[in-house]
């Protein structure tokens, strides 16, 4: 749910990175944080376990610039990917404006990818959203690993509505900003349609 503040002339949107455990959601946020100027970003908050697995969420506020005289702010969140944190994932989807699904290109994680898309669809529904209509992009992460599942096979298994997809290697930054831009663009376009 976008928040338009006429008093401070700001618009705030929420984008959530979703995907199975260890697929690279936090790494995406870390790269964005590292490569964004201090004036455009807030603090990167990570609620993580001692072993640096996301426990509740990561959060990064980002200011992209001005549109129609309004400062445009995106609040980026990740969900905890591990299966047993489902209650937390549901909460983080509250008020979401757009979703980035981060898929792991390893053959061994394909089942986890498929299960996580199903879980996203169910959890969105619980919050009153429909995966088929919400702004949504797919990121195929870890494209540099040996034996990565070919792109056509990943799309066949994971693409739900012919959504835009981006190949990525998050620790090197490949495809990270492109994915975010793809999602932000859809959120802003949906705002035009919804208003």
């Amino acid at each position, binding site marked *: 749910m976008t928040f338009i503040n006429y008093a401070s002339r700001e618009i705030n949107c929420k984008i959530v990175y979703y995907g199975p455990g260890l697929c690279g959601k936090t790494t995406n946020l870390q790269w964005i944080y590292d490569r964004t100027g201090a004036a455009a970003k807030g*603090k990167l908050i990570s609620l993580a376990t001692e072993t640096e697995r996301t426990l509740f969420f990561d959060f990064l506020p980002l200011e*992209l610039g001005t549109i*129609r005289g309004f400062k445009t702010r995106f609040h980026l969140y990740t969900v905890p990917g591990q299966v047993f944190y489902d209650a937390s994932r549901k909460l983080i989807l509250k008020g979401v404006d757009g979703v980035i699904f981060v898929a792991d290109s390893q053959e061994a994680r394909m089942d986890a990818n498929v299960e996580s898309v199903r879980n996203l669809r169910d959890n969105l529904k619980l919050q009153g959203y429909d995966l088929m209509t919400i702004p949504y992009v797919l990121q195929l992460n870890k494209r540099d690993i040996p034996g990565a599942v070919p792109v056509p096979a990943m799309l066949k298994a994971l693409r739900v509505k012919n959504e835009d997809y981006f190949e990525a290697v998050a620790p090197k930054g490949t495809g990270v900003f492109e994915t975010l831009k793809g999602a932000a663009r859809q959120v802003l376009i949906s705002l*035009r349609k919804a208003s």
Partner: protein
Amino acid sequence: MPMADSVMYSEQLGQLNGVLSRLRSHANARAAFLIDRNGQQIASTGEDLEAMDATALASLTAGNVASTDAIAKLIGEREFFALVHEGEKDNLHISLVNSRIIMVILFDERSSLGLVRLRVRQNNPDLVEIFEVIEQRHAQEVALAGANASPFAEITDDDIDSLFS
């Protein structure tokens, strides 16, 4: 479909700030914040606000409320109306203004939990009323202006591209 159904206007923001300032003063509190349940900061007043990361505070508070709300349901409660966090020097009182808005009061030894609770209870109806006015005003503007009510109705691809240039 996400809807731009959460808005704030200058006039009502002024009124909210007025109530918050009064509440903070009467409660001897360090700071007071209004936050929406999705983690957006709405209004704030208090000491050393510049030193505080209000964006992070809003996001973490909303996460905190969402999580305790889920716990409430697990034990058969509809929701917890208030949460209190006690620190060595500073304390937080977090409460629900209405179904969408959270109030956070930061206080130290100059105040007490009882006083903060009392002042929150006394001032809450005024806040509820102002948020009702905001909702009514927004609904009226949408009804009158339809698709042109939003400044983003005519957003262009060039506008969007300019954000990423």
